[in-house]
């Protein structure tokens, strides 16, 4: 998951590996009653579940099955460069492949583009927008609506749009169930657990500014 190529460091973009390290550093600690420890991969972060995670572990498994499914779609269609699942607000749920864009940025653009087509459909008296395709000079893109989000396939021009469209439709069927349950799992995940951010110590031993709020407050204090 998150195997996206980032902008080259020379143009100021951060390397994915940097982000991965950062996200790993931001591992989540769950506090619960039973003593066993579970380890599971979630994004690039190692998520440590203390005790019986119950619904949450199921939630993580659903998340995992979404990215596994997305990976299998990517592997099975020749010429596909990337397959992405975003939720209805454009938050990236799963990304596999190779696109030169930040996941959150990509998600926001895709969700808005889709909302525009949806609004157009409303105007034309249509119930819902099922599929949007875009043909660029170097890429073909298909965005397939799913429950609570959409599946986006990005392919090289050598892959005919018909093939991409079929792959998107098939992908929808496989992913639909997992997407339905993810929303529930996520809600439970928030209700059941506390999220604790670890303190980061800079190389000089000083506490690093952890949040934008503390950064701005400190800046203000200094005048």
């Amino acid at each position, binding site marked *: 998951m998150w195997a996206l190529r980032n902008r080259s460091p020379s143009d100021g*973009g951060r390397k994915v590996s940097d982000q991965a390290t950062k996200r790993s550093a931001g591992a989540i600690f769950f506090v619960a009653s039973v003593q066993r420890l579970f380890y599971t991969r*979630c994004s690039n972060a190692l998520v440590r579940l203390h005790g019986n995670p119950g619904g949450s572990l199921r939630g993580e498994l659903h998340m995992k099955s979404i990215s596994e499914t997305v990976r299998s779609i990517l592997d099975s269609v020749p010429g596909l460069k990337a397959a992405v699942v975003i939720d209805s607000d454009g*938050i990236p*749920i799963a990304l596999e492949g190779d696109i030169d864009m930040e996941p959150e940025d990509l998600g*926001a653009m895709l969700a*808005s583009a889709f909302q525009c087509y949806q609004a157009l459909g409303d105007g034309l008296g249509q119930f819902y927008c099922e599929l949007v395709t875009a043909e660029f000079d170097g890429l073909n893109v298909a965005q397939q609506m799913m429950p609570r989000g959409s599946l986006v396939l990005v392919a090289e021009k050598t892959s005919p749009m018909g093939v991409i469209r079929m792959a998107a439709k098939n992908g929808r069927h496989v992913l639909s169930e997992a997407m339905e349950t993810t929303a529930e799992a996520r809600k439970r995940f928030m209700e059941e657990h506390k*999220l604790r951010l670890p303190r980061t110590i800079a190389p000089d031993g000083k506490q690093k500014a*952890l949040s934008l*709020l503390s950064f701005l407050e400190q800046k203000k204090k200094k005048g």
Partner: protein
Amino acid sequence: MKVVGDRIYLKLIFFGTALAGKTTALEWLFYHAIPDEMKLVKELRQVKTSFGQTLLFDFAPIEISQNVVTRIFSATGQDYYKGTRTKVLADSDGIFIVIDSQKKALERNQEILQELWKCVEEMENLSEAEIVALYNKNDLEEIHSMEFLREYLGLEKYDGFSTCALTGDNLEDALIAMLRKLTAKLEAKGFVLE
């Protein structure tokens, strides 16, 4: 607010009339107040009209702490694109209402606030959004005072800042006020941010 994997996603939006200064305020904060290492994009993503105003939104994802990403949007103020404006507003955790303090903009401010309150009533979750008001263009001559606008527009209960988006006057304070509210809310929901 959403939790995906190991991250919490928040959504902040600048909302207000056309030309009130939403884009300018977001640009100032993005390029002057937010440290580069927290930006997930190098430049603001902007979907503009051919004449430079916002068509759909300006957008930047910011990592406000290690596990919290805030997606900041500025919506379009032009009524021509009203249909998509409310879509951009959906699910916001924080709303900066940007008031154009110019006397000639008073009625337009009122109209867009009516639209906002209607959305807050009708759209799920929006009533829980934190609100901070920016009384913008405080550098101009023909303007109403913040005190007058607060009362006239019925915004007394919200934190308000008299701002100039061109110079960034009071924008950082407004952002601090918003971040404090959001942090308190996260903590109230049981997320312990250190």
